[in-house]
């Protein structure tokens, strides 16, 4: 008798668990339908992944309001270039630099060879670094400058003939107080584009003696 009771227990427990799981699922499903009817005025629409949800968010909310959702989407769906692009374009419209960085990093996962993306990310990181520096957050500023250097170096290696990328590299070096290398980058930028005003300005001041 005891043996029978012992054997029956796990089955009972799994049956109970099965019932609990199904009740939870039923609550979530019926609640989901009710939520959709209340919020959208119709049962859940047949959709394709997150793309339709994103469209719905864009249609119903302001840019700044949907940034948290897009950030979550971009961090989960890190491999989908479209999700990163959605975050990036919304972040530019909302002037949200942290989200711009997130979007650019996400896009780089998708297109690691894109020198322009590396350059743009370096520029944004440099801007954040300068803002941190102005607030006297030296460690945070240095971290952003070093991160910017990684991306500007990759950008220059991928496309050494871009005057703009050489200027970005020069600006990052200047921020890191590596003036010799900064001057070299600006000179290279001038070689590529003799009319480059940022390069002329930087070599005139503050890199006059380098």
């Amino acid at each position, binding site marked *: 008798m005891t043996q029978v009771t012992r054997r029956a227990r796990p089955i009972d427990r799994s049956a109970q668990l099965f019932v609990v799981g199904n009740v939870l699922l039923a609550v*979530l499903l019926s609640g989901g339908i009710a939520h959709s009817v209340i919020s959208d005025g119709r049962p859940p629409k047949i959709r394709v992944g997150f793309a339709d949800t994103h469209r719905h968010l864009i249609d119903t909310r302001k840019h700044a309001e949907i940034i948290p959702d897009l950030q979550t989407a971009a961090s989960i769906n890190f491999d989908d270039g479209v999700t990163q692009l959605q975050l990036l374009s919304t972040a530019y419209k909302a002037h949200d630099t942290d989200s711009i960085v997130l979007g650019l990093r996400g896009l780089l996962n998708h297109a690691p060879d894109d020198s322009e993306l590396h350059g743009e990310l370096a520029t944004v990181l440099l801007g954040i670094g300068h803002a941190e520096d102005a607030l006297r957050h030296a460690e945070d500023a240095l971290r952003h400058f070093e991160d910017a250097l990684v991306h500007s170096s990759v950008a220059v290696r991928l496309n050494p003939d871009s005057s703009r990328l050489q200027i970005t590299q020069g600006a990052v070096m200047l921020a890191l107080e590596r003036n010799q290398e900064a001057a070299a980058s600006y000179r290279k930028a001038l070689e590529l584009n003799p009319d480059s005003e940022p390069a002329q300005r930087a070599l005139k001041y503050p890199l006059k003696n380098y």
Partner: protein
Amino acid sequence: MAISSTLRSMGLIGRCFVHPIFDYLVIGGGLSLIVIPAVYLLADPPVMRDFTMLPWFILCSNSAHFAASTVRLYTKPGSRDALPFLTMVFPTVTLGVLTLCMFEADVIGRYVQLIYLSWSPYHYAAQAYGLAVMYCVRSGCELTQNQKRFLWWIAILPFFKVLLVATSKHVVAWHIPEQLVWSQVDWRGGVNLVTEVLGVLAMALPLVLFAQVWLTNRRSMPLISLLVIMTNGVWFVVFPLIDGFVWTTIFHGIQYLAIVMIFHVRDRVARPENKRGVVFHTICFYGMCLVLGYALFNCLPYGYQMLGFGAAESVLLVIAAINIHHFIVDGYIWKLGRGDANRRVVETVAIGTGA
């Protein structure tokens, strides 16, 4: 000599489940070799993404196919006794883990996504292998253990190719962002060469195995076994990665629905108390898959939104969880063990045919 040549030619088509045309086009994946070039020739690829019917198409093929493994699990004779954990406990565990992941979606979500993205091409390859072996068994072509092992390695070559091409889809990306992996040392030339070699091998080795079986077993592997392995290869070898995933998602879903319905209907029709026909059981099974597919992919995310979770994690993590649940369930419901309902379906026609 005459007997040997007859055996070989009889085995070429193989013993099909429905009709050679249906089996080769739908289960073998031959349809994809017609439809994909047609789409590329007749329309721009973006048509696939802007197509207004796409959500319905996804529901009817992809969502329904995910639901089909669960429907099959609970309708397959004897599965509750044979798989008590999978049938009774696993759904609740999945729901619990999914809910926990929702709380830390920004941190954990990426890894859940990585697991399912890494697993997908393996799952497709494993299905191709399973179908190839199934048709061999059914057609009376007994592969040796070595031949089966060789077939398995050939089948998963596209999986390895995907892993190499998409660094962001697997374990490397857990630690280092892809752009930094590439920025340290530019070893992509070597990787590209290896992936090209893998692609060529994925296309050539099935033919080598076919010839080897032909020569050593003195009979032919059914061509559908060859086709099913090669179409999975074509999806990932010929097309760019993203297109490969799109096409595989569509045609794998169709392939899966066809074979699972065949097994289900044959089980139902074979029941002594059965009074209904094939069409009834097919419609019932597919109807259940459609309803469950709609409920899981479209209603469940709203359920989590109702609880206060964001739209992004609700949609994306539910999709990832359904995928992972499907992969695990699928690993068990297709076993061809002796006495299993699947074995009976596979062997039904093969026995006594001499084919």
